[in-house]
């Protein structure tokens, strides 16, 4: 089955499930994606009425991690009298992981969330396509057979789908959400995830100096807009460490040292929590790809604690938990 056909099937099932959930009053609203107004985009949408479910779409441009709208709950999803609305949420693998991780961290109550699971077939790497098309206006993008077709005035280019999806999607082992209430097609179960972390191997082979240079160059264009943080489903702090001003912990300028401090400390907070959705990279206005940093942390957590975030609701992430036999090589022995 081609990707286009697969998408249409998923889309139809999403609409059917959404319609039923709304009709049976199992949920108050559905959060999903709707057709975008510019090429290579979709827009998150809240559906309240079953007659609107045909606005829901599924394609390979569904970038936003919808779990973001639940932690903290956006005001549109809270009724002044009833409290939290019951939400049905169109859930690809990484959204599902975020929901579980947020439930573990007591940020959302899954009783009020119906997970409509979908087996995600990968999200198109918008940056890479835009970069390779260069200064020509993209007017239409579609996925047909196994290619991404990009059209504009006087040009048409084709990119192989499997090559031009996000790097994270290429490595993704959890394509459908680990916990579902209804599932479109087949949703897998994940007890243990095997991941070779091929994408960080090249980085690992670098010398410390080369790594330092790479990270510095990667982050040099950061404007400190914090779009990465705002798009991240796991960044839900009321007040981010970098925004605190009583006392001021970190500088707020775009001096290189301050940029590095922000990103590296944020990365630390992601260890064992990042759900590898790539939202941070896809929203960055200057196209910084933070995924290598978060993937490296994911790998370390996997190797040390055999932990994968967002798959087991009963298992605390390593940074929130301890066991007596944990290694403590950083503790200095008394002479």
């Amino acid at each position, binding site marked *: 089955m081609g990707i286009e056909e697969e998408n249409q099937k998923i889309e139809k099932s999403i609409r059917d499930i959404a319609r039923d959930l709304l009709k049976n009053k199992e949920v108050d609203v559905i959060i999903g994606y709707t057709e*975008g*107004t*510019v090429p290579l*985009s*979709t*827009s*998150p*949408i*809240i559906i309240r009425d079953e007659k609107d479910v045909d606005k829901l779409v599924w394609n390979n441009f569904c*970038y*936003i991690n919808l779990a*973001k709208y639940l932690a903290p709950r*956006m*005001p*549109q999803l809270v009724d002044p009298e009833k409290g939290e609305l019951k939400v049905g949420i169109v859930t690809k693998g990484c959204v599902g992981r975020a929901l579980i991780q947020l439930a573990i961290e007591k940020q959302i109550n899954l009783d009020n969330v119906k997970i409509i699971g979908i087996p995600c077939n990968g999200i198109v790497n918008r*940056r890479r396509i*835009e*970069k390779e098309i260069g*200064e*020509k*206006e993209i*007017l239409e993008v579609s996925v047909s057979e196994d290619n991404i077709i990009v059209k504009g*005035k006087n040009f048409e280019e084709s990119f192989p789908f499997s090559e031009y999806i996000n790097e994270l999607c290429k490595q993704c082992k959890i394509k459908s959400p680990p916990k579902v209430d209804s599932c479109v097609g087949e949703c897998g179960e994940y007890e243990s995830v095997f991941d070779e972390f091929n994408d960080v191997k090249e980085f690992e082979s670098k010398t410390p100096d080369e790594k330092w240079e790479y990270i510095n160059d990667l982050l040099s*264009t950061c*404007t*400190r*807009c*914090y*779009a990465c943080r*705002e*798009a991240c489903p796991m960044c839900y702090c009321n007040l981010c460490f970098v*925004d605190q001003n009583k006392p*001021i912990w970190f*500088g*707020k*300028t*775009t*001096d290189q040292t301050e940029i590095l401090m922000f990103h590296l400390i944020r990365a630390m907070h992601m260890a064992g929590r990042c759900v590898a959705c790539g939202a941070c990279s*896809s*929203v960055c*206005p*200057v*196209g910084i790809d933070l995924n290598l940093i978060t993937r490296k942390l994911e790998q370390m957590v996997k190797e040390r604690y055999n932990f994968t975030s967002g798959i087991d609701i009963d298992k605390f992430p390593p940074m929130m938990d301890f066991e007596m036999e944990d290694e403590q090589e950083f503790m200095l022995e008394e002479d």
Partner: protein
Amino acid sequence: MEQKILLKKDIGKLYNELSKEFKFYAPINEKGYITFRKIENPDNIVLDYLNSKIPPKDVLFPEKDILFEYRYEGKEVIIEEPKNLDEKKIIFGIRPCDAYSFELFANFFSFHGNCKDEIYLTKKENTVLIGIGCNSPRQTCFCTSVGGHPFKKENVDIFLVDLGNKYLVESISERGEAIVKSLSWLGKANDEDKQKAEELSKKAEEMITTQIDPDKIDKILDENFQHPIWSEISESCISCGTCAYLCPTCTCFDVIDENDAYHNRGRRIRIWDTCQSCLYTMETSGHNPRGSKIERCRNRIMHKFSYYPKNYDLTGCVGCGRCVLYCPANNDLRYILKEIEQIES
């Protein structure tokens, strides 16, 4: 004024001459997107571009703008004002919408002459804009609805029109004319060139399909500060602030003090801020009049289409379409404005 011809192959020559007197900024391709940078090697200049992803506002209004530095000498405090504000700059290749945004910026930073920000205004006074007409506006552009035009010349000192392998050069201001005169090697333009430029201007105007009515919107906004539409349009917003960071007219900033007690010195810095941030307008008490994204999204629209027009009699948006094209949640400003237009009074 007499029009001249600049061959594209002579851009290097132009740079070599003008960079003696001016710091020369122009569009380059940085990591896959177009942005304005100070040019060291003219080969890096990219002129075949639709519009830069990053607007050139940061040339005069950088993400980090040091307002002053201070140091203690004994009990005395020595204040050091920023240096080189009057350094001469050229921004080459700026699009008419972005050039117009510099005027909107200057309005904000002078407030009818009542409250002048000398740091910005001095920099602006010493900056020469060499604009290039926009031969192919994007589908997301709507400059003609908000006081602009793909070939608007008024906001630049020298205006160029891309005629393929050459530019038609027209000096607009006095200092622009002086520069054009100093480049004695520029060719002469013939009637055919001028006619072609006219045609390109007309063609570009026709390419802009989005039409909005800012006057109507301003009136509707006046009466609809409380309206369900604000909740609707902010639903998909993730508060990332990409719209503001890529906006050529967003002026909001935060002021911070960095005190280096160890070295007995410090600095006061202006950094970019955005109304989409949860700290924007947060009061010391902890109360925030724009407490959720509903109020913050409203503020963005109100500021550009209601408050700015009231203060300066101009729309606070130049219709460049960057926020439309790059919003990760595809919260399309064109559609937001269309919906506002349909609110019945």
